[in-house]
């Protein structure tokens, strides 16, 4: 029996734990404000907020309920547009009406929920963060400008938000109904779920559920996202350890990563969308074994080493590049969990970059992606790791290309000599994300782009001609 709060109501359901929350909301609970546009996380019409107690504090994140398993919301608070609706309109709803941010209205509840989620975060609300909050919501009618105008109105009204206790502040300012004040206590009263012993590890479900709802409904699930052993990002000496159940948003918010990677935000905002970043885990990105996983590309270049643990408690480590053995094949036994990934933190002479090009810049899977990490000693490259996705059946570490850089001076000539080697390491195929010729050209350009970004003077685009 799974128990959670749906808006102001305790729901107890005997549905299979693999059922998606969307269906329970719409068809069992008859709350039809949450819409279905795609059932694969790509439109945001089904967005809900999920609140959970983290270190005693109630925190909300937006998620796409079409990919959200019931198993993932036990003991949590699921908020739909109906739960945000009070006798008068909330400031978010008011702004969407006043700015004419709704036409056919089908996408609108999703936008309202996403914008409200932004207001409930522990970050100040800015024009940038408000627009980012709706980066997973597709509207086919308005062309977005009116919605952005609405978002800006919301920002003006919420400029003075109390980020220490956004829920209480929001209730006081008419953004949320007052029953929200009792939610934390009501969640504490729900007994934890008995630890599941299923056979299918479940992270955020953003890979497992895509185009596979019917099988997933009846899958024997082992939810991993809330396992404390798999959560958290910590520093151990010169290394950083990232829990396998960390979601992309956790990476974005990590003080350690922020301190070491000045371009963390622009890099990670290229990964999926706000609600998917709130769900998709690091381990899920590795284990789904996609040849174009963005986090995979990043951790390959960083020098990630996995810690895998079996049910007996025995652990082993494995460099990430040895994890991928063939198309969607892994060096992992079915019962091993990805507990964490560790990597050496960058030093002052380290340069790190991530490049991704897709048809649509945001909320799209890469045609090609690549990450690169080099260490310099003066003018010489002393270490290099380059990864490439979308150009082979597995995510690649471009070992030979990197070798051609190591020990050589940092110069366009060095790069020029290395690039043809990359072309021999890859074997792209033509598909909906581009022809093989394009992917070859694109990887060449993105490898150049790493250097151009690090050293704009030395690697001017003309030097590529």
């Amino acid at each position, binding site marked *: 029996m799974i128990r959670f709060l749906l808006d102001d109501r305790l729901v107890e359901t005997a549905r299979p734990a693999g059922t998606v929350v969307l269906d329970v909301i719409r068809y069992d609970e008859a709350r039809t404000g949450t819409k279905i*546009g795609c059932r694969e996380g790509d439109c945001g019409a089904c967005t809900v907020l999920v609140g959970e107690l983290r270190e005693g504090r109630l925190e909300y994140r937006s998620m796409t309920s079409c990919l959200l398993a019931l198993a993932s919301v036990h003991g949590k608070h699921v908020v739909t547009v*109906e739960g945000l609706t009070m006798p008068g309109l909330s400031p978010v709803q008011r702004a969407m009406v006043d700015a004419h941010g709704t036409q056919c209205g089908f996408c*609108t509840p999703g936008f309202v929920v996403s914008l409200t989620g932004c207001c409930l975060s522990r970050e100040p609300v800015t024009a940038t963060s408000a627009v980012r909050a709706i980066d997973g919501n597709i509207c086919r009618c308005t062309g977005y400008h009116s919605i952005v105008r609405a978002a800006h109105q919301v920002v003006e009204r919420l400029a003075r938000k109390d980020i220490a206790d956004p829920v209480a502040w929001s209730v006081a300012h008419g953004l949320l109904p007052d029953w929200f004040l009792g939610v934390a206590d009501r969640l504490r009263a729900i007994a934890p779920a008995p630890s599941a012993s299923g056979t299918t590890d479940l992270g955020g479900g953003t890979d497992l559920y895509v185009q596979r709802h019917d099988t997933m409904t009846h899958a024997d699930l082992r939810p991993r996202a809330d396992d404390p052993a798999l959560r958290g990002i910590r520093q151990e000496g010169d290394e950083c350890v990232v829990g396998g159940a960390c979601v992309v948003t956790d990476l974005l918010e990590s003080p350690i990563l922020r301190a070491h990677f000045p371009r963390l935000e622009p890099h990670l905002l290229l990964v999926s969308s706000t609600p998917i970043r709130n769900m998709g885990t690091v381990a899920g990105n590795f284990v789904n074994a996609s040849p174009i996983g963005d986090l995979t590309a990043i951790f390959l270049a960083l020098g990630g080493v996995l810690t895998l643990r079996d049910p007996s408690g025995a652990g082993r480590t494995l460099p990430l590049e040895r994890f991928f053995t063939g198309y*969607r094949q892994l060096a992992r036994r079915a019962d091993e969990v990805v507990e964490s990934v560790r990597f050496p933190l960058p030093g002052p002479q380290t340069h790190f970059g991530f490049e991704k090009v897709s048809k649509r810049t*945001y909320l799209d899977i890469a045609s090609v992606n690549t990450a690169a990490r080099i260490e310099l000693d003066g003018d010489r490259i002393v270490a290099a790791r380059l990864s490439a996705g979308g150009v082979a059946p597995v995510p690649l570490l471009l070992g030979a290309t990197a070798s051609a850089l190591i020990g050589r001076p940092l110069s366009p000539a060095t790069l020029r000599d290395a690039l043809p080697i990359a072309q021999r390491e890859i074997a792209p195929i033509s598909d909906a994300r581009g022809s093989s010729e394009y992917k070859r050209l694109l990887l060449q350009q993105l490898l150049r782009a790493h250097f151009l970004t690090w050293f704009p003077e030395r690697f001017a685009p003309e030097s590529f001609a």
Partner: protein
Amino acid sequence: MTLGDPIGHVTGASLYLDDLRPLAGTLHALACDAPTAHARLRRVEVASAAALPGVVRVILAADIPGENQIGGIVPDEPLLASDVIHFWGMPVAIVVAESEEIARAARALIVYEYDELEVITDPRVARERGELIVPPRTFRIGDVDAAWAQCRHVFEGRADTNGQEHLYIETQGAYAVPTEQGGLRVSSSTQGPTAVQRTIARVLGVPMHRIEVDVTRLGGGFGGKEDQASAWAAIAALASHLTGRPVKLSLHRMDDMRMTGKRHPYSSDFRIGLSEDLRILAYEAVFHQNAGAAADLSPAVLERTLFHATNSYFVPNVRATAWSCRTHLPPNTAFRGFGGPQGMFVIESAIALAAARLGVPARAIQERNLLAEGDTFPYGQVATRVHARATWQHADRAFDLARMEQEVAAFNAGSRTHVRGMALMPICFGISFTNTPMNQARALVHVYQDGSVGVSTGAVEMGQGVNRKLVQIAASAFSIAPERVRIETTNTTRVANTSPSAASATADLNGKALELACDAVRLRLREKAARMLGADWQQVSLVDEVVHVGGVPTDLGWKALVHAAQWDRVNLSESAHYATPEIHFDKATEKGHPFAYHVYGTAAVVATVDRVRGTYVLDSVRLVHDFGQTLDAAVDLGQVEGGLVQGLGWMTLEEVVYDERGRLRSNALSTYKVPDVHSVPRELVVEALATDGHPLAIRRGKAVGEPPLMYGIGAYFAIQNAVRAARPDAVLVFDAPFTPEKVLMALYDAPEVSPVGDAPRGSSGTSASAVPRG
């Protein structure tokens, strides 16, 4: 004051098809297709599907009681394939089950045996094989063959535009409920309730009066639910008819994308001739429309391509021929612009090519040839109240086009990593259904005895704001508060024989009919007030809910007047009919006056290309649009912004990909990308051209649904100009959309791959058919 639906939308209270509470006993229908685009069916084995617990019935073509035919213009489209499968996604069977999940499980158990036939996806190949939907049509004016000799410059080339998925966020669906005496009440997500009613009656073999079709609102349509909603409503109705139970059907997104048609891809050839001073003297175009496997609305779309072949320009000698080619794609259909954008892209390509070859900016040719008052279109209509040059000049004044060009040049001189391009896009779009008989509408208005008002028309609300406009028309006709007016669902039993909500003409046609209906009731109310007040009825007016006599307010208010009229047996209801005057068209001569009026505009689009990565952003779109006397500025602005962004998407990201077997590869939102909040222009300026509007437009406010889409075409040429600035020798290709892939491939030569070394060969082919996601 908030009119219409927005409050329901932001609170989640607005109801769409799938939100209707199912009645007890409701079944779920699922359309089943075979994995082939063209095949002769030998056998369909449904026994194991039918035996699955929870499956109530599996329906095949032979079970259809009426005609197995849903074609509107041409009867060439079976609802269910019986002998030949014509496209990948064509329904062969319908599973009816207790739940959707069971229906999906059953679908997987159906076995199809068939012999594959040749698959054609290219319209040019179809034309060679004589596979035509209708005979080709040609519009001509002047003598094009003689004109070439007078031209100083002649250029020819080819231009292609890809299709476009509608991607209404609400997928297609219908809910059929048996009533009594063999009747069915069908809720449908359709732009054309009458088309749905007619189609169901035909498939079931019953008179139309047995079928009631009701539409509350659509979660987007854009043309995709004009003709193509009928199949899904017919399937639900058929299943309900055969089982006697309510049946619901709401398409899964991937079924919707695979099984429904899209904007027509076109492949065209052009030839353009100019004088020394850049006047276009002659233009010839041959359009190959990829109609897909059945006619659907293709002949009408084809016609509009011809009507808009010369866009906003006057060309004295034109010959434009259009071929509607039958291929094995899903039947392509209406999509905002309805063939017009495809025609305009070709002449803009011709101008761009001529400009590049002559070394002049395209805008010099564009500006030189803009339509003027009294010019004749190739279809014989004389252009009047022309605003082509006025919008252009307004844009020049407001945006300073020369300065914009200088800024682009300055940017390009100063950046090593990025390069910018600019393009202008004038538009001219004709308003009316080009099929003249469709330009009629009806409205039914009830003034209830408490003074509230109910309005029914044939208009379907799908986000275009027509309900808001209808509220304002009724409220201002009676001079009452908008809150007193309620727009009812669109229902075939209240308003019959309607044209679909399409062609941007919905508010014009239904609004005019509503005005007529309100006028009739208002007249009777004024007469009643005159009797009550002992005044001459011509002196009586209604102002802000108060009866005035000779301009002076009286004590008689709206509610009291209505109440008194009811008890005096005055008819407080009216049904009115409107037919657009003046328009006509003769298909034998291809001449006439098909449009009530034209809408004009000019846009300036600026794009910046990342010359290393091949990606781009749209910096700005600044445009001047001919709204006329806008009836609702907020609604109209929303239509411009939304239409524009759809046009930009069509020209940039949106790529419909079929493989050579006719299978859709861009078959989900993960592989078909529409604009998101980050891909729209950073800056968007919309200026209204000041005019007194047009008398045939509803309250002189011009139709606004479709025309703005075509501003998006400017994005193609802005990106192309940026590419040319980066690489002057880049080959000029006119093949939309201009994806980042095409940009990068135009900027660089492909890297050489020397086969030395032990390159790891991927197990290629593993994902050749399954597109892996993240």
